[in-house]
C-alpha cells in the first residue's frame, strides 16, 4: 500500500498542508526544526493512533488551535481509501472512512499500515522494558487491529484492580477490608491478560527468526555475534510459556493468588503482561548493558525490519509504508548502505534528512524540500 495524498490542518507546525505522494522513495529534506518529522509523525498517527514522540495528543495540535485534522488517501491494490481523523485534546477524537463517520477512531486501524524507524528506536535496546512492550503491542495492533480492544480492556482492568488493591489494602491495615470483589477482578485480569500475553508470545515466535536474519544482513562485520529474541514473563521461569490462552489464564490467576498479600501491601498489580519484557541477546550477553552503540543500532533497526517483513508476508505481499525519520545520519557508512539496500524495493519509503547527502544513493527518488512549514516538490 502507499499514501497517495496527505493533508493536514493545524497539526504541529502546519496550519494547512497538502502533499501529494508517489509510490517509491520520497526524501523530505530541510534544515532542523522545519517540520519534516511532523509530516511523518502524522502518517504514523493515522496508522497507529499514536505518536512515536509523545504519549498525549496535546503537543500534536498547532499552538493556539483547538483541534487538528489529519487526512490520508491510501492506495491498496488500486483501491483508494480516504482516512480522516480529528484530534481534539480533552475530548473524544473522531474518525471518518471514505467520508462516513465511524463509531470510534479504532475502526481506522489496519487501513494504513506503517513501520517507522526513528532515532528514538535506540531505546528499544537500551531503554526500559516499557519501550519493548510498546514495540510488541503496537505491532500486535497493526497485525490484528482487534488487539487494540484487548489492550484497552487490559489497561482498564489494571486501573480498576490497582484501585481496589489500594483501597482494600488500606482497609485491611485498618482491620477491615473487603476482598469479595478482588476475585472477580483477578478473573478478568487473567482472562484479558492471557489474551494479550498469548498474542505477544505468538508474535515473538514469529519475529525471532526475522530479527536474526535482519541483523545478519545489516551487520556483516567480521563474524557478528548471533542475536536472539525471547520473552520474559512476570509468571517467572517455572511456568512453561505456551500460547494456549486457557493455560496462561490459569497460570496468571494462580500467580495472583500466590502474591495477593504482597499486592495488597504494595497496592500494585505485580502479575501480568504489563510487568513483562522482551529479551534481546547478543551472543552470550543480554543486549541491554552489553551491546556496543553500533550493535545496539543494528539490533534496533533489525527489530523494525523484522516488523516490516512480518507484516508484508502475512498480508500476501502488501507492504506497509516504510518511514525512516533521520536514521541514516546515525549510522556508519556500511550500515547505511545495507539498510538502504534492504528497504529500497519497498512499495513506498518516506525518508527525512537535514541534507540530501544523508540519503544513501540507493534511495534515489522524489525529493520534497521542507522549509518553515512549507513543502515544495523539487524532483
Amino acid at each position, binding site marked *: 500500500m502507499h499514501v497517495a495524498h496527505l493533508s493536514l490542518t493545524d497539526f504541529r507546525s502546519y496550519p494547512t498542508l497538502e502533499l501529494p505522494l508517489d509510490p517509491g522513495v520520497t526524501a523530505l529534506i530541510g534544515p532542523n526544526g522545519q517540520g519534516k518529522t511532523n509530516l511523518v509523525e502524522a502518517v504514523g498517527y493515522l496508522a497507529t493512533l499514536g505518536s512515536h514522540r509523545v504519549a498525549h495528543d496535546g503537543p500534536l495540535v498547532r499552538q493556539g488551535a483547538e483541534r487538528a485534522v489529519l487526512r490520508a488517501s491510501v492506495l491498496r491494490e488500486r483501491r483508494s481509501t480516504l482516512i480522516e481523523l480529528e484530534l481534539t485534546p480533552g475530548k473524544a477524537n473522531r474518525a471518518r472512512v471514505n467520508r462516513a463517520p465511524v*463509531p470510534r477512531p479504532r475502526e481506522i486501524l489496519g487501513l494504513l499500515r506503517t513501520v517507522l524507524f526513528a532515532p528514538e528506536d535506540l531505546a528499544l535496546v537500551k531503554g526500559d522494558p516499557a519501550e519493548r512492550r510498546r514495540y510488541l503491542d503496537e505491532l500486535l495492533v497493526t497485525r490484528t487491529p482487534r488487539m487494540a*480492544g484487548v489492550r*484497552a*480492556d487490559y489497561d*482498564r*482492568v489494571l*486501573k*480498576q*484492580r490497582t*484501585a*481496589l488493591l489500594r*483501597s482494600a489494602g488500606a482497609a485491611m491495615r485498618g482491620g477491615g477490608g*473487603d476482598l*469479595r*470483589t478482588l*476475585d*472477580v*477482578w483477578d*478473573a*478478568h485480569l487473567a482472562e484479558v491478560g492471557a489474551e494479550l500475553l498469548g498474542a505477544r508470545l505468538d508474535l515473538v515466535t514469529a519475529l525471532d527468526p526475522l530479527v536474526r536474519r535482519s541483523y545478519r544482513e545489516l551487520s556483516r562485520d567480521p563474524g557478528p555475534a548471533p542475536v536472539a529474541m525471547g520473552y520474559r514473563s512476570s509468571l517467572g521461569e517455572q511456568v512453561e510459556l505456551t500460547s494456549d490462552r486457557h493455560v496462561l489464564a490459569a497460570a496468571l490467576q494462580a500467580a495472583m493468588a500466590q502474591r495477593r498479600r504482597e499486592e495488597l501491601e504494595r497496592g500494585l498489580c505485580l502479575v501480568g503482561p504489563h510487568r513483562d519484557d522482551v529479551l534481546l541477546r547478543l551472543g552470550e550477553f543480554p543486549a541491554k548493558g552489553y551491546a556496543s552503540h553500533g550493535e545496539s543500532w543494528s539490533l534496533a533497526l533489525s527489530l523494525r525490519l523484522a516488523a516490516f517483513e512480518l507484516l508484508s508476508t502475512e498480508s500476501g505481499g502488501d507492504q506497509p509504508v516504510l518511514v525512516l525519520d533521520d536514521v541514516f545520519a546515525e549510522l556508519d557508512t556500511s550500515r547505511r548502505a545495507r539498510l538502504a539496500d534492504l528497504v529500497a524495493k519497498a512499495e513506498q519509503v518516506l525518508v527525512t534528512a537535514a541534507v540530501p547527502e544523508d540519503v544513501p544513493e540507493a534511495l534515489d527518488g522524489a525529493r520534497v524540500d521542507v522549509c518553515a512549514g512549507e513543502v515544495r516538490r523539487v524532483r
Partner: protein
Amino acid sequence: MYEGVVQDLIDELGRLPGVGPKGAQRIAFHLLAADPADVRRLVAAITEVKERVHFCRVCGNVAQDEECRICRDPRRDVTVLCVVEEPKDVVAIERTREFRGRYHVLGGAISPIEGVGPDDLRVRELMTRLADGVVTELILATDPNLEGEATATYLARLVKPMGLTVTRLASGLPVGGDLEYADEVTLGRAFEGRRLIDV
C-alpha cells in the same frame, strides 16, 4: 472567577454529568439572559421531580408512587428478574417488548476507580428479593463493558448457591458501550439469545 452567586451557579452546573467548565459557564450566562418566566419553569420542573418522583421501593426504578408501574403490573412474570445498572436501561429494554418479567435496578456498576463497591449498589436488596424462591431466572443485563461484566460475574458468583438459572445477554451488543445506546433490534436479539452464565 466571577462574582459570588454567578460563580456559585457555574460551580453547581459544572457538577452535572456531561457539563464541563466551559459548558457550565455557557449555561449560566444563558440563564442570566433568559426570560424570568422560562427560568421559573425550569426551576419548577426540577423541584417537582425531586418532590414527586421517587425510587421504587421494590426494584429501584424511578416511580411516581412508592412502587413503580412495572412492579404494580399483575401481568408481569414474577419468576424472571432482570438486573440492570440504571433506570434508563429499564426504558431501553422495555422498548424492545421482548421482556415480560420484572427488574432490579442496581444504581450503577462495581468500579473501584470511582470507589463503587457492592455495598454502594442495591445488592443487599436484590438478595432479599431472591430469598423467597419465587424468582427462578435471573437475567444479568449490566452494560457490555468491563465494569458491567465484573458486576455480572460478582452477582453470578454471589447467587450461585441459590440454584437459580442465571443468564447474561447474548453477545452482539456493541462491546464497551452502554445498554441504552443499543438499538431495539440488537437489544431484543440479545435478550432472546441470552446464555447461561457459568462461574
